[in-house]
């Protein structure tokens, strides 16, 4: 008798499919690091030789660092605000009976399916009508609209995943609403909060369309990169930058995935 159950048994077809899919997905991406170490301006085979000079140039690139800082700021504010809004929305959606709940949730989730360009143009028109000057603030606003649905989608399963009698037990044992939220709800959804924050940050960090319409004189990193691509001699520098971002993004996304599942499936102890 086999030790593993039917569902856990290895499946060759599925494994082949998974590998093919991953190759399709990541081979183009692998050209980025490959050419970022290539000693030539043009992105073409054959490779010319190994160099780290594109990386060295990057570290002396003042405008690039300014753009990076802009993106980090926008990302941090977007992630914080979206996650906060997401927590309260997710709690309301999963815990309270309210009239018209489904249409409201539908509207909040709409940016998931509406093309960014439509939101971008709409916000641009709104801002100019209101006379609000375009700046990193307007970019942040656009990013929050994009990110709240992702935050909610990350957090709702977290809230649905625990029995509401756990919150009632806290009230029963003498905690008011805030005490219960602080001592029970928050620690239990905490991994979801971290996952939501990281997800929103990465979305904002590489968001282009909203930033394209809504940024003023200060570019975010994707806008900066796009501007660079018009100059052939800057392309290898962009590849180097892209490689660094890729590595960091991978690390962040894996961490987010891992923390999202903490406490839901496994029995990992959390020092909280």
């Amino acid at each position, binding site marked *: 008798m086999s030790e593993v159950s039917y569902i856990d048994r290895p499946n060759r077809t599925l494994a082949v499919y998974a590998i093919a899919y991953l190759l399709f997905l990541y081979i183009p991406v692998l050209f980025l690091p490959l050419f970022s170490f290539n000693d030539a301006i043009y992105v073409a085979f054959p490779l010319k030789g190994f160099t780290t000079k594109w990386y060295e140039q990057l570290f002396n690139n003042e405008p690039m660092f300014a753009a990076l800082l802009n993106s980090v700021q926008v990302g941090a504010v977007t992630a914080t605000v979206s996650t906060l809004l997401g927590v309260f929305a997710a709690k309301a959606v999963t815990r309270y009976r309210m009239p018209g709940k489904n249409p409201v949730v539908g509207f909040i989730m709409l940016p998931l399916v509406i093309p960014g360009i439509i939101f971008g143009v709409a916000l641009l028109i709104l801002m100019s009508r209101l006379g609000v000057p375009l700046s990193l603030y307007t970019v942040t606003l656009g990013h929050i609209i994009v990110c709240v649905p992702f935050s909610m989608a990350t957090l709702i399963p977290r809230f649905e995943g625990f029995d509401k*009698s756990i919150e009632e*037990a*806290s009230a029963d044992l*003498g905690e008011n609403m805030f005490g219960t939220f602080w001592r029970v709800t928050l620690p*239990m959804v905490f991994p979801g909060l971290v996952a939501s924050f990281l997800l929103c940050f990465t979305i904002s960090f590489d968001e282009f369309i909203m930033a394209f319409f809504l940024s003023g004189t200060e570019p975010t990193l994707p806008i900066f990169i796009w501007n660079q691509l018009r100059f052939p001699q800057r392309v290898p520098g962009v590849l180097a930058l892209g490689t660094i971002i890729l590595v960091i993004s991978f690390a962040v996304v894996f961490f987010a995935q891992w923390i999202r599942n903490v406490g839901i499936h496994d029995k990992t102890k959390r020092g909280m």
Partner: protein
Amino acid sequence: MSSSDPMISIRSVAKSFGPVRAVEAVSMEIAEGEFFSLLGPSGCGKTTLLRMLAGFETPTSGEIFIDDQPMSSVPPHQRPVNMVFQSYAIFPHLNVRANIAYGLRKQKLPKQQQNAMVDEMLELIKLPGYGDRRSHELSGGERQRVALARALIKRPKVLLLDEPLGALDKQLREQMQLELRALQRSVGITFVFVTHDQEEALTMSDRIAVMSKGRCLQIDTPNRLYEAPSNREVAAFIGTINFFDASIKSVNGETANVDAGVLGEVKAPVGDGTFASGMKVLLAIRPEKLSIESKKPKRSAHAVEGVLDAAAYLGERSHYYVRVDGIERPIAVSAQNAHRMLEGIDDQPRPVWLSWSSDSAVILDAK
């Protein structure tokens, strides 16, 4: 509070969820230190009533008093009651110790005293050394004990328990019934215990409220519920019982004489309701109150002849089903197996005699 006042007074409390009338005008009083059970089939409103006591649901009408205080404007976290949830609701992000100590925060006790109290609780629930475990490292029975300790450490005036033994296997369940009852006696706290298991309610409770479809049918001691049910539904819900159509001949205070067709004229105590001569009623007799013999009994108040239809051997007792001419359903009889029956039970169809004494039947309203 004077000693005669009830601990809990529920005054015509009703609760509707939209069109669903979960509880309808229920009134009951529960005394201090009582082990009081709410018994009824699933969906009859037991949990809803309990949640109104805890403050998680607001009555649509009526008022609940706990310790003479009206509860309508008191939120759950300020009520002098604690609850053991059906799912136990152990905080999964805290260990057993922190779970038990959860409700102590507001009391601002020194750490040392708090630890001593938790240790005492761990002793009480017989889980010393389990303090560092988490919810997922506990069995169902252990979780149930932690939920109990977490509530009891608050020294509530009333402990509410929603089918706390429902998730346990039969053996553990029976053991926990005894332990819970002993615990209630030793701490002296009023228990309101919800169950759908009549045997459980009968063994544990001082008094039981039998509920059905949101209404309260009878509130009484286990003995009286079984021996003197006040209406047809309670009689049918608690244990098994034989009903016979009858009509009143004369009423004499708490007893009446009825004409029960082939069973002849029977005298028996009456349940709830008003009875008058000529009224159609039900004569109800428990299976174990009937004796079955092969010859006509000499000295019994009431006896009738029938034919054995079926029999089942159940170890300590046997069940017999007897057909009597003029009565539609076979009559159920339960008899102790006082003698060894190594050859098995004799279920050959044969004439038998059933007999009972006059105080073992009850007369109930036919409705």
